[in-house]
């Protein structure tokens, strides 16, 4: 009995310590975020130049960059808003990442960001960033001519951004493909697919990719914005080899954080089962 009480007391003390540490950490992160934002506000031009220099060095030093980056915004996340997303889009554009997906697991009342508010819609899930209006303004602001270059020295193009729907594009899409095949199960094509599992797997892959419409459907790097490391149901078929990194909720996300994640990604070795 005494032993059990002692264990209970130790366990609760431990959890209390963890909770206190987390609370203090969150306060510290918010304070830092406030300081960074204030600095950005007053030193906007210098900050942009510093970011450019940072990314130039990053690209020089890195052997690989992801082609497709996915931002997973957790259901519990309260600090990621449209302006933060636009900042990250800007970093991706400067580095030269061609495809970026946003997977926001929040509901509208909990802060879900509709990227259509600041991106140019093209078709289905595809948007372009910056929108034509923003693009013209950005070019004029940056160098006054019609050419804008990223840290790689290449002309900056529009970033292709995909908004992945948490309810329709993951598990539900696979079920939809299964339903489609089931309706046509009497056809020779589907009967042929049932002779070998690889054929069916390839067909599912092809149809899911068509439906998603993302040129590189498997994201290589995922940044989770949440207090918890969790996929929140992100594309179960496509995120199988995605490198996930969690950015703790409340912490300021700036160009340095982005560059650090790129370094981490470049260091990891993909073995593909070998």
């Amino acid at each position, binding site marked *: 009995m005494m*032993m*059990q009480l*002692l*264990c*209970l007391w*130790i*366990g*609760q003390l*431990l*959890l209390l310590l*963890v*909770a206190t540490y*987390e609370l203090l950490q969150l306060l510290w992160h918010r304070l830092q975020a406030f300081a960074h934002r204030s600095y950005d506000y007053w030193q906007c031009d210098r900050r942009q130049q510093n970011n450019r220099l940072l990314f130039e060095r990053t690209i020089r030093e890195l052997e690989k960059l992801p082609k497709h980056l996915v931002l997973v915004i*957790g*259901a*519990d996340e309260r600090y990621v808003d449209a302006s933060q997303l636009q900042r990250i889009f800007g970093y991706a554009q400067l580095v030269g990442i061609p495809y970026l997906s946003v997977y926001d*697991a929040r509901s509208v009342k909990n802060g879900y960001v509709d990227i259509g508010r600041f991106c140019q819609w093209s078709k289905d899930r595809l948007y372009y960033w910056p929108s034509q209006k923003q693009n013209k303004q950005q070019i004029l602001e940056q160098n006054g001519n019609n050419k804008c270059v990223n840290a790689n020295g290449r002309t900056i193009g529009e970033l292709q951004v995909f908004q992945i729907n948490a309810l329709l594009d*993951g*598990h*539900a899409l*696979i*079920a939809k*493909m*299964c*339903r489609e*095949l*089931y*309706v046509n*199960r009497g056809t020779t094509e*589907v009967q042929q*697919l*049932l002779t070998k*599992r690889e054929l*069916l*797997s390839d067909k*599912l*892959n092809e149809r899911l990719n068509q439906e998603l419409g993302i040129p590189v459907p498997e994201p290589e790097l995922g940044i989770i914005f*949440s*207090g*918890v*490391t*969790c*996929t*929140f*149901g992100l594309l*179960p*078929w496509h*995120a*199988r*080899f*995605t*490198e*996930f*990194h969690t950015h703790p909720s409340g912490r300021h996300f700036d160009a340095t954080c982005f560059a650090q994640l790129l370094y981490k990604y470049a260091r*990891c070795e*993909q073995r*593909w*089962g*070998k």
Partner: protein
Amino acid sequence: MSWVSDYQYTWLQKLALNALQISGHIPHHIAFVMDGNRRFARSKQLDKIEGHSRGFAKLADVLRWCLDMGIREVTTFAFSIENFKRSRDEVEGLFNLARDKFAKLLAEIERLDEHGIRIRVLGNIELLPADLQRLIASAMLRTEHNDKLFLNVAFAYTSRDEITQAVESVLQAEENPDGEDALLPTDINERLLEACLYTRHSPPPDLVFRTSGETRLSDFMMWQIKSSVLYFTQVLWPQITIWNFMAGIIAYQRDRSRIEDFRSEQRLHSAQLAKSSDFYSLRVQKFLHKLDANRRKLLIALASN
């Protein structure tokens, strides 16, 4: 027993284990990605297979910790379909290790019954050599009545294969004797596919624990982990200690409350899907019952080969 070790706790470890058990929520189901056996072997200048063998010995310790902690279900990722790309020697070495361990398991089956441990192998076992299929099927059938600790070993497994297998099961649904379709197109949704996965009788993992510092999931339980807490640690699998294990449990206890609302939403969504698609209708339940019967029939056939 070779699958669950007789780990000797120090008094401090015992105290910490009890403290965690009494004061916080213990995960019902943990999934382990046991990564780092080969890197461990390289660092100690051992043969790769010796690294895997040490990894298995560590699994026996981990199962003991789980059992003592009160965890009801453990899933381990032992061999991916992608691992067939490794050298022939290594793949054969891994199969030999599996043969040895499953043969030992069958030899000490009474002790498994005593602990109420049920072994389930998840994966496309027909890709494995016939003798290994026989051992695996025998172990699954022999322990199928145990229900205290469920040990799922993902062997010849990838999520894509599992999802494809679920779709395949739906497409192969046979007509009922009265000539009616086994399923209606409106019966097919995520809820039904979930019920056709290899893990159809398991709850989704509460915690996914991956060692060796890699932060990807390597096509492991991608369907099931939508609301699982992921825990990545730098330590190599054969070097994992009880303190690393408990750090994972603390991380889960810390994060669980944050994700609880999302999990409730998911449960509600799943219940709504089940209702809207007649998941509990006689038609769908008959189909699932037949699926179970066919899987069991396959195991019996493999065990008697």
